């Protein structure tokens, strides 16, 4: 069972009341009066505490659902691109090249090339550099010095970063997929969960628990990077200790050890920001290092540690055997150059799902999983063959494409793929995309098989659930939800005692479930917001009894009462939620109008709740949140137009930019930033106006955004403030005041000053 909020635990001790009242109470005329008085006060107190707990719970839900919705978005985005790659017929060489450029992964350099890539020896370290200097082979003192240096906010020079990464890679290559640790050697093992770039937590753990040593083994269970601001430093420390204590220090790969995820969640940005000259090299080698991280760790053959979870198909033998290096990203299976398969031969007679094309990974495998509740109203018979093909591009087709592609991330996408079939208009045998180097290097490692890929995705993305069974994890978009029976099945099959996993933030930093057979351990405290949660780590001795240590790396919060802490975090969550509401203003207005047939301008509060959920789909308890989001309502009705205007006022301070355009961009800003980074494949920080226009066109048809070509051109031109034909991501985001806070924490001179577009005198996007 989960750990309950402490004030709701059943009391463990009590003494009976009035029976034992003794002389040291003052003489009440009626002892029962005192009893009743005390009871009354307790009841009031408990009601108050319950309300606080509810608020805390709602706040948690808000953060979590926004986080997972973001992850879903990410997946949808990549599915969209995959779909394009598989089915889109570029109308011109230009478009074709553009897509190639975006989707063709660079060849994985062979070892010799990789050596050249690291090429750290030629990098000179100036005498003025006061940071730590590393020499290899690393000694324990070096690793300790690194921790100390980072604590003092120093930055490791790129040369040493590359050197360390190079050595790390050499070491990782020798490791098996599943590391085995024994408590015979080091008597205790400490397992830590997600750190997400929060260096303070790592430093705290080492401070409280001791630095790694032959007697103090550590396992870090993935998600070292993204979101926090010191991902680079965390990696440096972890890798350094791994090199120094290879037998005692172990790392598992998490779903964030993935360059595609990093594009969205901040690690890529952090590297480029801290290492302007060598960042690209660093990212490149990191891509490879991440693929070489082991997938799991086994303690005494009894405790299995992996990042996400398991599925009913999890096969440890297969996992141990596969070539983990082939799994570059768990977001897209195909990573090599796309070669067109002749559209005609294989697929005609066979049912689509068995065709040469693999079933999209996010769909539940029909043979092993129960009918997913998502398979609602399966449109009659399973798709029989292909009806229409995707027409060549043209305005009507964009719509067609958009309609089909829009509902990605669920079964619809698969149906869309199957219905759309393969482009029949293409001549037989013509490849889908022509790549410049059509003959791939023979030495490249082959792609993972669908089964291998699914095995890895499952262990990196799955979450436990209370119900029995195993079903697709639609919230995250990858892996599955696994029930207590799946856990039991696995533990028995491999003769294990329990599972340790991470991947999910927990208010107390840890949580047991499945009758204590699954332990979630999460080490990034204050993950959503200062005061939102504790971090924790778990220690195991030879008896393998878990001993948990919790902490919260922010002294200030200790001083606050529970109520104050909750208020702060709550405010932050509500702010995020209001932003999201604003970003969907047009849709919301549409929905509200549906509930207001008589056009009175008012809707009931319960209609409001329904409408909001149908647009935002966050699964939040809107009726409970309503008092915080809707400030005034009379007779349980709401004047929705002015409510929406109120939201907008909060978010916008200049009205000249067409609000629906702004709203659209705002809603999609993470996507846009991610797209930007994907286009900017050489990480220069710039994309050309043309690239911007292209991608915007594709993107807007997918998202069903009504924007004309002209408007896009104007938008592009207006964003290019310095008129050099290139858009710098900061220009882009800043134009809409979307520069994230992390930028301002860095070197101020590197970041554009946040200016009001009105004041700058630059042209604004014109309204169509």
């Amino acid at each position, binding site marked *: *069972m*989960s750990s*309950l*909020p*402490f*004030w*709701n*635990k*059943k*009391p*463990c*001790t*009590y*003494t009976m*009341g*009035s029976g*034992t*009242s003794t002389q040291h*109470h*003052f003489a*009440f005329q009626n002892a029962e*009066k*005192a*009893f*009743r*008085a*005390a*009871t*009354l*006060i*307790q*009841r*009031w*107190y*408990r*009601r*108050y*505490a*319950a*309300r606080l*707990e*509810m608020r805390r*719970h709602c706040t*948690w*839900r808000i953060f*979590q*659902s926004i986080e*997972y919705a973001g992850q879903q978005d990410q997946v949808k985005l990549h599915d969209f691109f995959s779909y394009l790659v598989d089915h889109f017929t570029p109308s011109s060489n230009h478009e074709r090249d553009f897509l190639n450029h975006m989707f063709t992964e660079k060849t994985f350099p062979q070892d010799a090339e990789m050596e050249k890539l690291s090429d750290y020896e030629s990098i000179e370290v100036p005498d003025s550099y006061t940071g730590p200097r590393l020499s290899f082979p690393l000694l324990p003192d070096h690793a300790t010095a690194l921790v100390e240096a980072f604590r003092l906010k120093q930055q490791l020079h790129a040369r040493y970063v590359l050197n360390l990464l190079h050595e790390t890679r050499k070491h990782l290559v020798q490791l098996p997929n599943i590391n085995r640790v024994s408590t015979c050697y080091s008597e205790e093992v400490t397992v830590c969960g997600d750190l997400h770039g929060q260096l303070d937590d790592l430093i705290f753990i080492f401070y409280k628990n001791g630095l790694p040593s032959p007697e103090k083994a550590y396992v870090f269970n993935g998600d070292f990077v993204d979101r926090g601001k010191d991902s680079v430093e965390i990696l440096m420390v972890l890798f350094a200790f791994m090199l120094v204590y290879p037998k005692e220090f172990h790392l598992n790969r998490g779903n964030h050890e993935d360059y595609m995820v990093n594009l969205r969640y901040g690690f890529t940005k952090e590297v480029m920001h801290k290492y302007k000259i060598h960042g690209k090299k660093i990212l490149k080698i990191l891509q490879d290092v991440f693929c070489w991280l082991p997938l799991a760790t086994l303690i005494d053959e009894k405790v299995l540690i992996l990042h996400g979870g398991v599925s009913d198909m999890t096969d440890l033998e297969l996992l141990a055997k596969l070539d983990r290096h082939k799994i570059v990203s768990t977001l897209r299976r195909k990573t090599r150059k796309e070669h067109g398969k002749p559209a005609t031969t294989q697929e005609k007679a066979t049912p689509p799902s068995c065709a040469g094309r693999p079933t999209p990974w996010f769909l539940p495998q029909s043979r092993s999983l129960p009918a997913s*509740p998502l398979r609602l109203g399966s449109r009659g018979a399973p798709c029989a063959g292909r009806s229409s093909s995707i027409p060549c591009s043209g305005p009507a087709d964009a719509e067609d494409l958009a309609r089909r592609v829009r509902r990605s991330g669920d079964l619809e996408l698969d149906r869309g793929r199957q219905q759309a079939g393969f482009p029949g208009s293409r001549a037989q045998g013509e490849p889908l995309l022509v790549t410049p180097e059509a003959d791939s290097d023979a030495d490249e490692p082959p792609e993972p098989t669908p089964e291998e890929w699914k095995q890895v995705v499952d262990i990196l993305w799955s979450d436990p*659930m*209370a*119900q029995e069974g195993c079903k697709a994890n639609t*919230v995250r978009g990858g892996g599955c939800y696994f029930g207590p029976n799946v856990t039991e099945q696995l533990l028995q099959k491999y003769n294990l005692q329990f599972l340790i996993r991470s991947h999910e933030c927990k208010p107390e930093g840890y949580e047991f479930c499945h009758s204590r057979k699954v332990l979630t351990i999460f080490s990034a405290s204050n993950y959503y917001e200062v005061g939102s949660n504790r971090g924790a780590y778990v220690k195991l001795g030879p008896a393998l009894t878990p001993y948990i240590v919790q902490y919260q790396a922010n002294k200030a919060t200790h001083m606050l*009462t*529970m*109520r104050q802490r909750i208020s702060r975090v709550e405010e932050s969550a509500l702010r995020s939620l209001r932003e999201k509401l604003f970003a969907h203003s047009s849709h919301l207005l549409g929905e509200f109008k549906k509930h207001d047939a008589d056009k009175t301008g008012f809707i009931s509060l319960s209609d409001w709740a329904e409408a909001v959920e149908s647009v935002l789909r966050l*699964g939040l308890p809107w009726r409970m949140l309503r*008092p915080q989001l809707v400030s005034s309502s009379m007779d349980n009705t709401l004047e929705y137009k002015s409510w929406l205007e109120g939201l907008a006022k909060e978010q916008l301070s200049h009205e000249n930019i067409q609000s629906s355009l702004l709203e659209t961009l705002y809603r999609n800003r993470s996507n846009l930033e991610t797209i930007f980074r994907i286009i900017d494949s050489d990480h220069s920080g710039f994309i050309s106006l043309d690239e911007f226009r292209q991608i915007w066109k594709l993107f807007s048809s997918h998202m069903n955004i009504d924007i004309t070509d002209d408007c896009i051109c104007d938008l592009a031109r207006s964003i290019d403030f310095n008129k050099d034909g290139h858009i710098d991501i900061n220009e882009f985001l800043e134009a809409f005041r979307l520069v994230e806070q992390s930028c301002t924490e860095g070197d101020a001179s590197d970041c554009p000053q946040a200016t009001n577009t009105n004041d700058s005198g630059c042209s604004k996007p014109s309204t169509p």
Partner: protein
Amino acid sequence: MRRIIQWIEIGTIIRSLGCCPSEGELHDLIAEVEEEEPTGYIRFEKFLPVMTEVLLERRYRPSPEDTLLRAFEVLDPSKRGFLTKEELIKYMTEEGEPFSQEEMEEMLSAAIDPESNSIHYKDYIAMMVVDDS
């Protein structure tokens, strides 16, 4: 659709809906909605009708604010306007219903005036009273 599963105790739910039952009353209520063989889970289908009834009958309504004040005054017969920390602890843990250590600590952290180490209950009441809109 159940997605993110987190545990909230039934007591928290009931109380946050505006009810103010004693622990004893709460246990009775739970007994009404529990499964025959308690699984530790409560099913919504069972909970809903019982809870609806409770709300319609306005059962377990909190007593008015001044009753709460009088309750404190019972424990403070000399009408000082406050209770010392030790007094509050004693009354909460030795009188009334079972009150856990953690509940005591949390109550104190919010209620206590650090300078005098006492609880000025009028202020505390003002904080605890939530308007039921």
